[in-house]
């Protein structure tokens, strides 16, 4: 039995006599953050968090602690019990889950799990050394996260996950470029290659010009489209947004919503992503087709939203952790079907006249029901002229309706890329979006901001 599973079992023992489930997240990680080509914020974290949910006849209370010795767990059980006693009965409570068979998934690499501070510092140094023309800003991080769920109804799930990410902004006065790589195997992440990609992009941003507001054709690199899609997914692909009539897809299931080249799934089982076998209730992860050839097909569900829907809906294995419960089930393994273009340059040729966007910054939902999102471009924005990437542009303010952006898609690239989406707040939970680059006929630019660079 794993360490996290041991802790989960001990928490249940401490809550003897209760109906309960225990979720444990154990983390060991290192992050060597650098700026101006020097490590300035190196952080090592070790923690074990146990979250105990007690259900007393429909009254639900949750408590958590990182004191995992017997006294801490006894007090945890008492606090969870007190919380349950304080809650009115919830007639919609779906009950504790029965155990279900779990899929086998990839996602754990022994070599990555064994990386220590010296390795993390060495790999950060590798990125710094490869950033020869511009100073490097970014980090290398690796970690091992153990997730375990156990319940008094017999659920017993545990998974060891590894992850590694190198992220680099190569930047100087009036120039900056971005790149990242993430994988559950550190062997797939070459920090030097990431730094070189960022440096080459930065060199092309010198002399950035401004741009008039307006609707442009555009190519979005995977970094850019991944973040846009993740934000859209937060407010539109979860079952709670359907039940509360906040989602763009309300009343549109089965309808053509996007260009037929666009298919989107949530697939935590895909070994090319950051695989997960089960959700935060221990229910098996399922691949969920959200959009198929432009037609809206589904939402992600957990047992709670399925029970509230009262229409035969079932969990798809997307129960959130208690800290995110207010948002309901969310997709954290988005996967966009690739297209037929060999490269982003081919998409540029398809676009002909427009803009090229490397990545985005500080997105915000303007209108969830219409899928309107605003944000800035950053670290590599260019004009496209005559089917080629042309002069660099300053960072652009955009405000786009994602459904309008995806209404006409000239093409997508053949090779998807895993774009990291984790910012490592709270307990470590690596996730990303697997997506190709994409071309659109409608990207609304409504202002300009700062020039590239520091």
């Amino acid at each position, binding site marked *: 039995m794993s360490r996290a599973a041991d802790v989960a079992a001990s928490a249940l023992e401490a809550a003897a006599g209760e109906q309960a489930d225990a979720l444990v997240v154990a983390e060991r*990680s290192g992050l060597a953050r650098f700026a101006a080509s020097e490590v300035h914020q190196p952080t090592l974290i070790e923690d074990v968090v146990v979250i105990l949910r007690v259900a007393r006849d429909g009254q639900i209370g949750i408590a958590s602690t990182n004191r995992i010795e017997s006294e801490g767990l006894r007090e945890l059980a008492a606090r969870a019990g007190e919380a349950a006693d304080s809650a009115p009965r919830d007639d919609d409570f779906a009950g504790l889950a029965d155990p279900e068979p779990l899929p086998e998934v990839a996602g754990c690499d022994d070599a990555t799990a064994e990386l220590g501070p010296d390795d993390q510092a060495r790999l950060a140094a590798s990125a710094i050394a490869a950033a020869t023309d511009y100073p490097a800003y970014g980090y290398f991080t690796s970690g091992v996260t153990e997730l375990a769920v156990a319940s008094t109804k017999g659920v017993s799930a545990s998974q060891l996950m590894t992850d590694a990410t190198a992220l680099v902004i190569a930047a100087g006065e009036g120039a900056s470029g971005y790149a990242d790589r993430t994988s559950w195997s550190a062997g797939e992440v070459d920090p030097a290659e990431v730094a070189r990609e960022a440096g080459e992009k930065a060199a092309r941003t010198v002399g950035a010009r401004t741009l008039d507001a307006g609707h442009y054709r555009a190519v979005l690199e995977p970094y850019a489209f991944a973040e846009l899609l993740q934000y859209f997914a937060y407010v539109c692909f979860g079952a709670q947004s359907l039940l509360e009539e906040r989602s763009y897809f309300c009343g549109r299931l089965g309808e053509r919503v996007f260009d037929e080249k666009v298919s989107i799934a949530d697939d935590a089982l895909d070994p090319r992503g950051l695989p997960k076998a089960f959700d935060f209730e221990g229910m098996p992860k399922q691949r969920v087709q959200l959009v198929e050839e432009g037609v809206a097909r589904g939402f992600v569900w957990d047992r709670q939203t399925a029970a509230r829907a009262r229409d035969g809906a079932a969990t798809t294995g997307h129960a959130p952790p208690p800290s995110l419960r207010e948002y309901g089930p969310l997709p954290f393994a988005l996967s966009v079907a690739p297209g037929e273009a060999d490269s982003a340059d081919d998409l540029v040729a398809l676009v002909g006249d427009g803009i090229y966007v490397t990545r985005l910054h500080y997105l915000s939902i303007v209108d969830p029901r219409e899928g309107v999102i605003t944000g800035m471009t950053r670290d590599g924005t260019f004009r496209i002229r005559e089917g080629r990437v042309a002069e660099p542009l300053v960072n652009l303010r955009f405000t786009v309706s994602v459904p309008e952006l995806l209404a006409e898609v000239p093409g997508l690239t053949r090779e998807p890329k895993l774009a990291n989406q984790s910012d490592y707040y*709270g307990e470590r939970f690596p996730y990303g979006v697997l997506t190709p680059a994409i071309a659109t006929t409608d990207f609304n630019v409504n202002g300009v901001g700062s020039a590239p660079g520091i």
Partner: protein
Amino acid sequence: MAVEAALAAGASYADARVVLRRNQNVSTKNGRVENLLDVESEGIGVRVLVGGAWGFACDRRLSDEGARAAARRATGFARAAAGRHDRRLAPVEASSGVYRTPLERDPFDVSLSDKVEHCLRAEQALAHADVKVTQAFVRAQREHKFLVSSEGSDVEQELVECGGGIDALAARDGLFQMRSYPSAHGGWSAQAGWEFVDGLGLEREAPRVGEQAAALLSADPCPAGVTTIVVDAEQVALQVHESVGHPTELDRVYGTEASYAGTSFLKPDDLASLRYGSEHMNVTADSTTPGGLGTFAFDDEGVAADRDPIVADGVLRGFLTSRETAARIGAGRGGSMRADGWSRMPLVRMSNLHLEPGEGSLEELVGGVDDGVYLETNKSWSIDDKRLNFQFGTQIAWEIKSGKLGRMLRDATYTGITPVFWGSLDAVAGRDEWRLSGLTNCGKGQPGQSAHVSHGASPARFTDVQIGVRG
């Protein structure tokens, strides 16, 4: 123990922070409990300078073994990741003392049952035929922390905060609108006792909130154009946060936050010369503000709390600093270093950052507008990596015609460039309209850290602002 171990391992400087944090979060939705969460976390974080390089490591175990392990790992990481610079800290006197948040009623003495009841009562008062979702939430946090440094600082602080809020989500015929009180994104919090939550008056305000959410479904969209806007105190607070607070963090100015939150349009030599805004703009950093979420006796480097001008009469007068960045710029002594719990390294953060009040009332501000828009309660927010181009949306707005509020408007947005926008500030309402907004979701750092900060502000008026941006 941790500091001794770090020095023995070769550190030239070390500090150790022990943090014990407890949170209670209660939320209800549509008449039932959505979440009832009682969270505790404790541990030790050790920060060291070895050969001029930083290292940080933490351990959840509050034991000699945990302290020594964290110190050993921090010094090891600093050695492994050594750079070429020799980082120096601005000199400060060793600090010692004990500080506790003054409060009347400890929020942890309020039972969870009473917290649930508080939410349910407020929620019931939100009810309206077009309101599909009602929700209410309250929270409490106690952070008991100890700081010891190799320079002799020895500080104990117990910071207690609590807060709450309500939301009404209305939907009809494919339209969705939301109204919140006292703000969106988690309500308001303060360092105070439960008397603060009682004082919010969630149940009292709920009928208005529910009615406005429903009324927004019939409101016209905010038109596009360039006009005069009057912004309520809560949205002004967020404007201060995003376009004054973050760009004046000196670590951003020096580029050390470039890979995540971004940098700043400000340069170190802008100090005392850059015109940030009009003469009506006076911004103060104040970690002594009663009730502020950024109030303390000492920051997480042991520097004593203070009150400093950041912008005076529209001119940049100060940065938010750490001991390291203060030494680098050659001015100040730090005082803005804060960490999110025990497992993160302190960063330069806002504490409490206020737009100082001007004169008159909100009514007088509106009365001075012939044609414009009044905007209330943040809905969306975005700003570029140098904090120049911003775009905000608000939950509700009203047109202003001949000095009076007119029809209600939905989906209002405004956008601008930071110094241009603040340069168009032509009035700030007076002390009677000044409110302290407490935010709990300020993100920064890698790995990510959330900070709790407060901003005092009065409603303010800006001219020639672009409004009504749509996708």
